[in-house]
């Protein structure tokens, strides 16, 4: 009976880890897509309305929820206080959903944001968008393959543990 209970718990844990893995991949995708959305809004704000960064940021924060929105809020808070340093920017975008490489991309973009004239700012924005597009494509592929595989794998491993222990 005890064996059966332990194997049940282990099966549950294994399946849970599988689903958590899928959730991670989904959240990573959402984080990067939200960043892409922010870049679009930023481009419009800069090109058409000539809005300042805090205004654009607040508009974006009001439009949704998620890990990226929280990070942007932290970033806009420090922008409103003054000129953010690289370290401050890094702290804002220290999300668990993104890779080290993504963090470098975010740090480089946000620590330089608003420090250039119009033309340079737009070309940097476009460059980041292009880089981000590739990252999103890869993240979506990972989500479809590895992300979808993880819950199944978790369940299979869990059942296997149950069989072995039984």
């Amino acid at each position, binding site marked *: 009976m005890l064996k059966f209970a332990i194997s049940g718990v282990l099966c549950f844990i294994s399946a849970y880890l599988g689903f958590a893995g899928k959730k991670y991949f989904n959240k990573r995708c959402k984080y990067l897509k939200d960043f892409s959305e922010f870049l679009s809004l930023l481009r419009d704000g*800069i090109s058409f309305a*000539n*809005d*300042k*960064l*805090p205004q654009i940021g607040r508009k974006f924060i009001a439009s949704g929820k998620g890990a990226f929105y929280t990070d942007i809020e932290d970033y806009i808070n420090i*922008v*409103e206080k*003054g*000129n*953010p340093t690289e370290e401050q920017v890094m702290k804002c975008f220290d999300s668990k959903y993104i890779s080290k490489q993504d963090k470098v991309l975010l740090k480089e973009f946000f620590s330089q*944001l*608003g*420090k*250039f*004239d*119009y*033309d*340079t*700012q*737009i070309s940097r924005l476009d460059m980041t968008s292009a880089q981000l597009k590739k990252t999103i494509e890869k993240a979506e592929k990972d989500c479809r393959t590895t992300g979808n595989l993880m819950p199944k794998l978790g369940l299979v491993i869990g059942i296997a543990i149950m069989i072995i222990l039984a």
Partner: protein
Amino acid sequence: MTIFNELYRIVDFNVLTEVRLRVDKPLYYAEAGKYKKINDLIISNDDLTYTLGVATKTSLYAYNDYLAEGYITYDGGIRIGITGEGVIKNGQLSTLKNITSLCIRIPRYVAIRNEKIDKLIAKFDNTLIISKPGYGKTTLLRYMIKSLSDREYNVLVLDERGELSGVVDGQLSIDLGACTDVVVGVPKIKSYSSQVRSMRPDVIATDEIFGEKEIDCILDCIRCGVKVVATLHSDELAKVEKSPSYSRLLKDFRYVVSIIGIGNIDKVIDLRGNYA
């Protein structure tokens, strides 16, 4: 710690009028117009970047047109003059890069106790204020705007750079009186004709007349019956009289106020005798 923390420690902000930042050079500041130097405070590129970041709310791109003009305006009408390397695009100056100097000018409302100015305001007519840069033309203009407004003249202030009124998010940070209307951030040439028709001012106040087009606009306003009070960079009236462009103003302006030292109003000249 920023250079401004150090400055806060040393300087009396009630009398601070100017701060000058030049890369690799010590910080200079002016208290009531007199320059002082802080030898220990050598300005770095990072200091300029920080200052510009704060001044532009980390949105330098939004100030592109202003950069091309060589200045940006910060909260409270603080004007920051900028020098750097010009970027030419389609044959025109597009913006500045590699910025090397900033000149931060802090506007203040000062009630001027001067009998000549009080008499001028009492029998107000078109007035031209002349002096070298930094002697207090804008301060005197601000005082005259408030005094005329207090006498219930409808004063229209054409404040292209926002330094006369110190407008921050639509709120005037400097009190220019209850009968004052302020146009901020609009090129003055555009404002003259449109605002004279729409706002029906008794007096137009404008800082730093520059160029033939503006002179034509001012003369047109005077022809329409609107009084003008304006400032002009020049160290003496004789030089204005010799200038083919600016001497045209003297035919329609009645008073010339000459400032010969920082805040030192030399004389108020009534030109009516000479140019009637």
